[in-house]
Every structure is written in C-alpha cells, then in structure tokens.
C-alpha cells in the first residue's frame, strides 16, 4: 500500500532531442504520493515533452526514470497505462460518439462471460462520477460535453485504471472560474486518496493556491524544485523567465499618427466580452495573454471571419461591416493568421501564386486573365525585400522552411499595401535568425505608417516590439500598458491573475 510521502516517480537528467532541436537537456522531477505537483515554465521550456515521455508517446534519449523501485518502461501508451500513469491532455481525447461509461472503460470493459457487462460499466462510471462530485449521466454520449466535464470523464478513467500518478496538461486553460474551483476540489480528493497529481498551468495564482510542490523548468532543464512554502510568485516568475531582456529587437521609434483602427465594446459571449482598444498609424499594439484567452478570436472578429454580437469596429472613423473579410480587405486590413499551413497558404501552390493571391486584381491582363509576367515581377520584388529563400518561384510553398513560409504569408499581405496589419503569432515555430527578420519587417511596416496589431504568446517579443500592450484573460481585457510601464512580471501577472500589481 502506498503511503503518503512515498517517492512514486523520479526523473533524473532526462534528455530528449527532436532532430536538431533539443527539447530536454537534463530535466529532473520527483513526485511523492499524496502530492499536487505543479510543473511550470514558459512555452517551449520542455514541460509537454516531459509529460509525453511519461505518457509513452515519446522515448527519452538520456537520463533515468524510476517508478518507486522499478525502472520505467518507455515507448507505448499502453505500457504507461499499465504502470499506473494516466495522462489528461489539454484537449481531452474522448471518443465523442461513445457513451461516458464507455469512454471511462474503453479497452478495459468489464466482462460477464463472453459479453461486455454494460450495466456494471454504467453503475461503476456513475459511482466514479459521484465520487468526483459531478452529476453526469453515464449513458450520455460524450459529444457536446463541456471541456470541464470531459476532463471529469478523463479523471474517472484514470481512477478506474487505478492509476496512482495522474498527469494533467494545462487542465484549467479552457475552464471558467467555477469549473476551476470544481477541478481543484477533485484534485484535492485525489491527493487525499494518496495519488500523485502533476499538472502544468500558466495560471500562477491557482498554482500557488493548490500545489504542494513546484518545479520550474526553463530551456529544457529544471531550474528549481521547491515546496510551495519556500517560494513565491516573484521568485517563480524570475525563474521562469531567467534571462534579462536584451535588445534583440529592432524596434525603432516611429511617428505615431491618428487613430486608424478603433474597437469599441466588442463582444461574442462564447469567446470574448466588452473589448475596446485602438491602434494608431505607425503604432505596434500587442495583444498578450494566455493561449485560449480570446486574442485570436478578437482578431478574427475584426477581420470579419467570425461575427460578434455587440460593439463596433471603426476604420478611420467609419464603421466596418460585420462578418465580411471582403469588406475588411476593401478597407485595407490584412490578417496574417496563426496557423500558416492551414489558414495562411495554399501549400501545394507555388510561391508566386501564393504571394500574388490577394493582388490578382492589380495583376490582370485585359481585366480577365492573370498576367504571369506581373505575377513573377511581384514575386521577385518581395523575394528581395524579405529575402525569401526558395529554389524556384513556382515551387510549392510546402517545400520551403517554416520561416520562409511565414515570409511568404507576410509578403502576400504586404503586397496589398494594407493600412492595418494584424499578425497572429508571427514567429511561432521559426528559428531565431528568421525571427529577427520577421520582427524587422513588422517594424518596417509600422515605420511606413501602417497600424500593426500583433498577437503573441512570447513575452520577449511582446515587450520588445510593442508600443502598447493589451493583456487579455478569459475573454476580457484586463490591462493596457504602455511600453514604459510594461515588464515581464506585470504582463505575466495580468495574464495569469487578471491583476497588474500581483
């Protein structure tokens, strides 16, 4: 029988590479029974890789992992499940067509003779849901369940497997305040039952409220392991960020002009509420906040991809038609989306076709046919301006590196000469050198008098590039900071707790 405080899991010097990229360069983690353990770190610090190794999705290249006195067997989700490790992913991986009882027992259905004993499965699922303090009908289909309830089903699944280590990847990211409270009650009851709960979260207020132990990671290594009493918010934030912000960013001062984009009281209750802000000519405004805080949805609503219920968007004082990207483009708005592969590019089309995509009207011959010469000339112009590297102008963009793909998306929109440039996570997944180039392009665009709205999850980028920073949390604007006021600490504090002076 496991006693409270027994060492259940120990990871030492764990390493993991993906091709040339090092995800973990020697991470440590020790978990005891009856403990809620928070795993913290910035995006890319290696938290998810740690969880995935334990889940059996990835195999570590180096270091040791022991479960109690046994060596952990890596390499298959099935093996991890058998060793008592249950993982609850950020996006719950339920089978939406199946009933809740079935989701709890999938692959391990109780049998009566040759047949599955559905009655027992249902009563057992109902018992587990009740134990977790949640009213759910085990016969109900999983489709249409809220994220919070889906997590409860996942936790019930973990309990039914007799897992003693339960990993949760950002379990609260998509939950409302009352749901978070309910989840915390569940986590505490797991702790009472001498299970170990490891969770990743960016909401530091919650972390401090519920954890017993906190491990902070940075750049693929463990920075600190402390009981919650031995650390505090300031210390954790310092450990997470770790480096002084150097002047990596080519931000230059521009003349800031009149208001170009003005958003007033914009609400779409499912995603964001009462959002107001403005962007001026020559200004870079950053929308900061956690993933899921509603930033991208605000951008999509401005550009007309989604509708909003109340509020208005004005371009140079004139109200913009709702829900029409065509109207937005006619008003010279450009949106460089978050997911370039799915939303930004036609992956199998050529570089030239992609760059010219939004400029066809200007490239026509006799008002009907596309003038290929002009298309080539346009491509050549932007290749030079952005130093895009490709073998031939008609090569599919699929063959380009991520950084060059991003430049193609930028070129496509810059070629339309927009007044308002919205960029969503402009440097996600691209290397450091290209990152700096993209930053320079954004700065140049602002210098040319464009109003820039930049969404970014990378704090250094936000602090380094923006004239003003708007912080969102759970669909609401919680802070607006000038370049002078903003620090890593107060932006993180606003994004995670909703208060600037935490």
């Amino acid at each position, binding site marked *: 029988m496991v006693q409270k405080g027994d060492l259940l899991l120990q990871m030492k010097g764990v390493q993991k590479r993906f091709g040339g990229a090092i995800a973990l360069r020697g991470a440590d983690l020790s978990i005891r029974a009856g403990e809620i353990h928070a795993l913290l770190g910035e995006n890319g610090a290696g938290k998810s890789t740690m969880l995935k190794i334990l*889940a059996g999705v990835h195999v570590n290249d180096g270091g040791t992992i022991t479960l109690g006195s046994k060596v952990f067997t890596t390499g298959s989700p099935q093996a991890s499940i058998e060793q008592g490790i249950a993982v609850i992913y950020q996006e719950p991986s339920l*089978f939406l067509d199946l009933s809740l009882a079935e989701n709890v027992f999938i692959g391990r259905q109780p049998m009566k003779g040759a047949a599955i004993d559905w009655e027992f499965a249902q009563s057992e699922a109902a018992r587990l849901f009740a134990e977790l303090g949640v009213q759910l009908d085990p016969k109900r289909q999983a489709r*249409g369940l809220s994220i919070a309830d889906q997590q409860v089903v996942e936790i019930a699944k973990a309990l039914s497997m007799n897992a003693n280590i339960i990993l949760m990847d950002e379990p609260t990211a998509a939950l409302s305040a009352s749901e978070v409270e309910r989840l915390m009650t569940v986590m505490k009851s797991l702790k009472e039952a001498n299970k170990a709960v490891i969770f990743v979260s960016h909401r530091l207020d919650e972390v401090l409220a519920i954890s017993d132990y906190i491990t902070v990671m940075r750049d693929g290594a463990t920075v600190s392991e402390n009981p919650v009493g031995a650390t505090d918010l300031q210390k954790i934030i310092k450990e997470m960020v770790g480096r002084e912000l150097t002047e990596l960013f080519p931000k230059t001062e521009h003349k800031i002009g009149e208001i170009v984009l003005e958003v007033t009281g914009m609400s779409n209750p*499912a995603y964001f509420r009462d959002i107001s802000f403005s962007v001026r000519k020559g200004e870079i405004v950053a929308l900061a906040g956690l993933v899921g805080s509603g930033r991208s949805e605000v951008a999509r609503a401005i550009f007309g991809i989604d509708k909003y219920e109340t509020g208005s968007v004005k371009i140079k004082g004139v109200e913009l038609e709702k829900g029409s990207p065509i109207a937005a483009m006619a008003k010279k708005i450009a949106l460089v989306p978050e997911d370039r592969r799915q939303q930004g590019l036609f992956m199998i089309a050529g570089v030239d076709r992609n760059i010219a995509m939004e400029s066809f009207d200007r490239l026509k011959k006799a008002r009907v046919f596309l003038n290929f010469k002009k298309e080539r000339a346009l491509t050549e112009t932007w290749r030079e301006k952005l130093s895009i590297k490709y073998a031939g102008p008609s090569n599919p963009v699929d063959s380009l590196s991520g950084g060059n793909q991003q430049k193609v998306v930028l070129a496509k929109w810059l070629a339309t000469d927009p007044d308002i440039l919205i960029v969503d996570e402009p440097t996600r997944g691209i290397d450091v050198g290209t990152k700096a180039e993209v930053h320079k392009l954004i700065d140049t665009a602002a210098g040319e008098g464009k109003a820039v709205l930049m969404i970014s999850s990378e704090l250094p980028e936000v602090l380094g590039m923006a004239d003003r920073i708007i912080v969102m949390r759970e*669909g609401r604007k919680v802070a607006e900071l000038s370049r002078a006021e903003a620090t890593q600490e107060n932006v993180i504090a606003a994004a995670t707790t909703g208060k600037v002076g935490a």
Partner: protein
Amino acid sequence: MNILSRLKPRSREGSLGLILIVTIGITGLINPRFLTGDGTRDLFTSTAVVALLAIGMAPVIIMRHIDLSVASTVGLTAWFVADICAKNPDFTWIHCFIIGPMIGMVVGIINGLLVAGLRLPSLVVTLGTLYIVRGAVYVISNSVDYNAQEMPPSLLDLGQKVFFGVMPFTFLLVIIAMLITAWFMKYRKAGRDCYAIGSNPHAANLVGLKVFRRTFLGFVFSGAMAGLAGVFYLMRFAQVDSTAFYGQELSVVAAAVIGGVTILGGSGTTVGALIGALLVQTIQGGLAAIGVDAFWKAAINGLLLITAIYADRVLARKSELALLAQRIRERA
C-alpha cells in the same frame, strides 16, 4: 425475444424502421400485391445480397474506412464457385458456402494489409482492388459463362427454399448474420474498438487500442461477407458471367449510409445497415409497383442518399449548437 429486446434499436434505427413500415404501408395501399406473401418474399430475395454486403461493410465504415471492392469480389466469388462446381460435379452447397467466403477473404486480406499495414487510404486502395479483382475475373473467365445445369442442384434448391411462405433461406441467413454482428459490435471489445477507432483515431492510439488488428480484421470480414454474397448471387440468379454484380459497390455504401452508418465513422449499427438495404429496395420495388419507370431507379437512389446525409448533418448541427449554447452559459 430476449435477444431482440437487448438489441433494442436506438432512436436512429427505430425511426428508420418506422420509415420502412410507412413506406411498405403506402406502397401496399397503392398496390396490394406488395403486401402479399409473394411480394414480401420478393422484397427479401432481392435485398439479400446488398443487405449482406452492407452488414459486412458496416464495421469498416464505422472505423472511418470504406471497402469499394465488394461488388467485384461478389463477381469473383460467384464466377469461381460456379467454375469449381462445374469441374467437381460432386460438390454440394456446403462446399460453396466454404469456398465462397474463403475467396472473399483473400481479397479482404489484401485490402487489410494495404490499409492497416501500409496506412494507405482505404478509398484509394479498395478502388484499386475493385479494378484489379474485376480485371482478374475478365481475364480468368475468358468469357466463359455458367448456367443452372453446371451448378450443384443442392445449392439451387436452397436458393429456392422459403420458410413460412415469406422468408427465403438466404434472407434468413442475412438476419442471422445481422444479429451475430450486432451482438458482436455491442458486446465484444473488438466491436467497441471499431467505434472508438472511427470516432477518434488519434485517441484510439493514445489509449492503446489495437488499431492495426481491428482495421485488418474489419477488411477481412468485409471480404468474407462479400464472398458469401457471391454464393447468394448464384443462388438467386443460377447464372454467372464475368460482369456479375458489376458497379453495385455504391448501392451497398448507400444502403449502409441510409441505414445510419455514418460515413465519417464512429456510429451506426448493422441493424441500421439491414434496414437501409430494405428501405432502398422497398422504395424501388414500390415505385415499380405503382408504375414508375425503372429508369428512375438510380436517380431515386441518389436522392435517398443525399436525404440521409442531410439528416445526419442536421443532427450534427443540432448538437454543435447545443454545445455552443452551453459554452455561452458557462462563460456568463
């Protein structure tokens, strides 16, 4: 009765059954012959082959795959079984019932290895085997046809056998196959895995389900049923040439989809597949019975299919809206 109540159709199958009964009723009002013993027997006889194939393909579709090779496989087995029997006059129906599914299984194994093993898309793989198998029949048959006199009398007698005046032997086997498959899909882990795999293939891997094995065996099962359906074809028509059952694969898919086996995987039952096959046949038979020209058959089939897909879409949209409404309430 116990097994029937345990296989209590969910609302989808229930409402389909109701639609079927209403359709039969209306047809019967217009043409009373449709409701007689003969009319019912004809409906069952003409549905048996497609129904068996739809039941066989249901697990494959539930796993978010498709098997387009079944009609060619019917042609292949029908011709080969007739050929083997012609060369072995002492063979009886039992030989046919063993050889047929085995030939079908060979095609199923090839499909299964290509789809599950090499992870090729089943749409393309089975489109390929559709042509390969049909091509093989053309080449091997060398334009040789077989008629009743070359087939085992015991097989043809069985094809004529009718219980209680309305239930042909072949359709009785279809019902038995449906019941066994329905039980298997509901009460065995392997059956439930099919639903899970079709519902969320990524999660199926994460929870450690045997995705390769289930997918492979699904295609083998579909192939075996297609082989048996080839024997049914002989029993019904007592005649076979290399074009037997040519181009009928999509009516099988249509029957399954109309019966609520979702083409996107994850839901549907073999009960539904059987009702779907009956519904298609009833409407076609009914239209013929009330004097609608046979040329309308294909168009009516297409209309039914789109109606079924539309019904699915409406249901899906309804649950999406419910989800969004819930989200708004939670955020408020």
